[in-house]
């Protein structure tokens, strides 16, 4: 947060409307510093997922400007989106794992895309799976995993590439309390190493535990932006 002066993400008066007349996001302005850890909370349908989707260019804003890692999303050509996405890790609310591939192959997809040689990729995948307590499941297919295991595979895929930004949508919704703490600690540690982390979650217990910056959305508007408690940015 100190060395790099530019923000990782900037939103200027961003609105998003899927259907004419209703807004999933309305006039949102925000700035996330590099290496910052941010919680996104709010009731179901508040626009959390929508906000994350805008950040990795899965949706285009209806109004306003979004600058991610120095690039203006609204002005991005088709061909500029993939390179941007390779610098962003995303944990999807519905995991989006490929049933026909093993756990290892699913995680390795994120590495194949950036051209990592196979041997190197296997080593990286093994190491991240081990951190998530999944190394013994690496040759299984997602369908034969429990919900929590699948969620961890999704997290592994998002982290394996050491992304500059990590977007996590409800990353612990299927985890028990103990695992939740383990995984959130892992995610938090990436922030210490300089990754900007945005976690959308309903679990206020976790939010309280970490004392990080917390942005609350309701009906597409920011209703609260609570600064982090204390100075340290990752413990």
């Amino acid at each position: 947060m100190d060395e790099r002066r530019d923000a990782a993400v900037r939103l200027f008066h961003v609105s998003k409307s899927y259907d004419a007349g209703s807004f999933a996001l309305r006039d949102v302005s925000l700035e996330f510093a590099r290496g910052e850890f941010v919680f996104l909370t709010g009731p179901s349908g508040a626009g959390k997922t929508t906000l994350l989707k805008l950040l990795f260019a899965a949706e285009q804003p209806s109004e306003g400007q979004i600058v991610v890692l120095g690039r203006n999303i609204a002005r991005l050509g088709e061909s500029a989106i993939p390179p941007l996405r390779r610098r962003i890790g995303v944990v999807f609310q519905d995991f989006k794992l490929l049933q026909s591939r093993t756990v290892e192959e699913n995680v390795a997809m994120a590495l194949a895309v950036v051209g990592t040689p196979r041997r190197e990729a296997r080593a990286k995948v093994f190491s991240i799976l081990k951190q998530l307590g999944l190394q013994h499941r690496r040759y299984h297919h997602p369908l034969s995993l429990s919900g929590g295991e699948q969620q961890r595979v999704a997290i592994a895929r998002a982290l394996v590439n050491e992304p500059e930004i990590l977007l996590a949508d409800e990353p612990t919704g299927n985890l028990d309390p103990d695992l939740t703490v383990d995984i959130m600690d892992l995610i938090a540690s990436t922030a210490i190493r300089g990754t900007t982390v945005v976690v959308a979650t309903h679990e206020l217990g976790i939010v309280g535990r970490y004392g990080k910056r917390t942005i609350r959305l309701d009906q597409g508007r920011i209703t609260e932006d609570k600064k982090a408690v204390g100075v340290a940015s990752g413990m």
Partner: protein
Amino acid sequence: MKRIGVRLAYFVRTAWRGLRASPVTSAVAVMTIGISLVLVGAFALLLQNMESLLDKLGGELHVTAYLEDGLTQGQQQEIAHLIGTVEGVESVSLITKEEAFERFRRGVGRGSALLEGLADNPLPASIEIALVASRRSASGMAMVVASLDGLDGIDDLASGQDWVEGYMRAVALLRGLGVGLGAILALATLLIVANTIRLAVFARRDELEILSLVGASHSFMQTPFLLEGILQGALGGGVALLLLFALFRVVLPGFEFGLELVLGGVSPRFFALGESLALVATGAGLGLFGSAAAVTGGWRT
């Protein structure tokens, strides 16, 4: 450089895994291409052999110059030589009076008994004039006839125009039918193959969506599918080639006699190496086209 190697390896591996991961779907595509190409190929074989038959028949097209009676053999040969130099004439052959009678006798067949009553050979000597390929039409023939007309020693010119007319129409009909049916068949094949691969890709849209989400470029996502398409197409072409060859070798000999009737003595010929490769290449092209059509259907998120 290293990146490119890594990438290529990835493409080939992914294409191969794609083929193996959905063996039924792949087999369907290969089989569809194979069957379609068998039809197209059988048709091409038929056309090719028919063309040689037509060529052969065309070679029998000729203008006959009946010579005046009473010329010496030397004079006859001189005229033949002269005719041989006329533009549009490919070759000439002299038929003496005796040869003409012999031919007639053979041609009449059973009725020949009644020729025995003839005292004198009333048939004239003649020169059969074969034409170059470009003149093998009613008008081309008329031109040759015109330039021979009035030549010394020639009594009469016969070009069998009626027969030529019929022949030319038959050729046009067969070529037309051939090209028309071939085009329909090719189009049908193209549609079926493209759509088969389209369905196959459709069945794997999840993979494309996820790849796109983790930042794969379009070319990165498409290349393995295109490779797969090419491979399936080439395999289909190979299958077609084998099937056609089997048909040609195993099935046709059983009909040898009948075939002779149909092909009129032209012995059937299979594809040469170049044509065989063209068939496989056509399969590969179909596969590529099909997967390209399938893959450029827009799949952002």
